[in-house]
């Protein structure tokens, strides 16, 4: 067991975990933040996407120990109190979900995508959004409204 400490959603956290503990298990089991989902557990589906030091990563394919000392943001860290993050609001407005299982990962990927596009001055058109969503799978195949929501949030 090793003490792994990091900042999650702005709060310093620490837990004694085995070195083989995945970041997603640390988040769900130790911190009880269950918004981050485990879908495939094989790096394909993106339900577990969180931000580590400002970058979207698959929390099922990273050890908690690798994230020690990092700043992590999960889906629970996006809203400001009762005010939804603009991307969350856009998913709500455009009904960018069906069963909702993939939604946390979709939103974390979308936030990262929009921030990178803004930083590089790139316009997020439909083709780019669909290509950027390559690592996020919606098994309800609700992609159409997800893309609409991201287009709306990107402005």
């Amino acid at each position, binding site marked *: 067991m*090793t003490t792994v400490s990091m900042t999650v959603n702005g709060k310093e956290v620490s837990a004694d975990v*085995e*070195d*083989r503990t*995945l970041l997603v298990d640390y988040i769900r089991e130790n911190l009880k933040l269950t918004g981050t989902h485990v879908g495939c*557990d*094989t*790096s394909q589906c*993106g339900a577990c*996407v969180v931000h580590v030091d400002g*970058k*979207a*990563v*698959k929390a099922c*394919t*990273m*050890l908690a*120990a*690798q994230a*020690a000392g990092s700043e992590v943001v999960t889906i629970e860290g996006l809203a400001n109190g009762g005010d939804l993050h603009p991307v969350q609001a856009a998913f709500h407005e455009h009904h960018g979900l069906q069963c909702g299982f993939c939604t946390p990962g979709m939103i974390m*990927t979308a936030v*990262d*995508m929009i921030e990178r596009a803004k930083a*590089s001055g790139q316009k997020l058109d439909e083709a780019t959004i669909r290509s*950027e969503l*390559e*690592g*996020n799978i919606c098994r309800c195949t609700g992609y159409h409204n997800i893309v609409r929501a991201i287009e709306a949030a990107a402005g």
Partner: protein
Amino acid sequence: MYETKYHRASSADEAVKLAGSADDGQFIAGGQTLIPTMKQRLASPSDLVDIRNIDAMKGVNVDGNKVTIGAATTHAEVADAPQLRAVCQGISDLAGHIGDPAVRHMGTIGGSVANNDPAADYPAALLALGAEIITNNRTISADDFFTGMFETALEDGELITSISFTVPDKSAYSKFPNPASRYAMAGVFVAKGGDGVRVAVTGAGSDGVFRHAGMEEALGSNWSADAVADADVDEAMMLSDIHGNAAYRANLVRVMAKRAVAAAG
């Protein structure tokens, strides 16, 4: 995943020492292949030595006509480096199409090269660019480095610290991704430089990445997509599986080569 012990190294020397003193030590960079492999219990290192935080092994440097990329540089960082795109668009485009955005934020060039997956993209670029792979104790040419499927010239405990190559006059990469896995079913990197034309193929060969002498010769005298349209691709050398048989892959190699030459201009 079996139990393992995690270590974080702050220098290449420390990483080599840590791995060397373990029963069965393994370097981990982005872990985008290693962690899934460990979850399947196909790998069970006693110790993991994390090299992702070694600053001296990160970054893209272009100095005149020489490019050096730190082994712990992520695919996203390679794809987004404007100084690299300005001199070698082929490798920038290649890096920007590995896996998906989240994988590109973690996966590293050194990890990809050390693993030498037969469908990985970077080995084709390094072989076509005539790159050098620099380790903690020597420099290995790409021609000598990739020795077969998942096999390289690396010794036990040897750590790749950087990759370097000379800027080509022209380069491009074209791949046909498997529609489900998105791994290359055939990927062809073409490069034209001071040492002539080099063509490297990934994804299709049954023994991993390889150079295609016939296409290199044809393009050496006639740099055009037509020059490789009828290239002889040996079906006996091709992978054959449920995703595509050898004849299909041989044809893909020709088509990807044509597209790469056309894209290089």
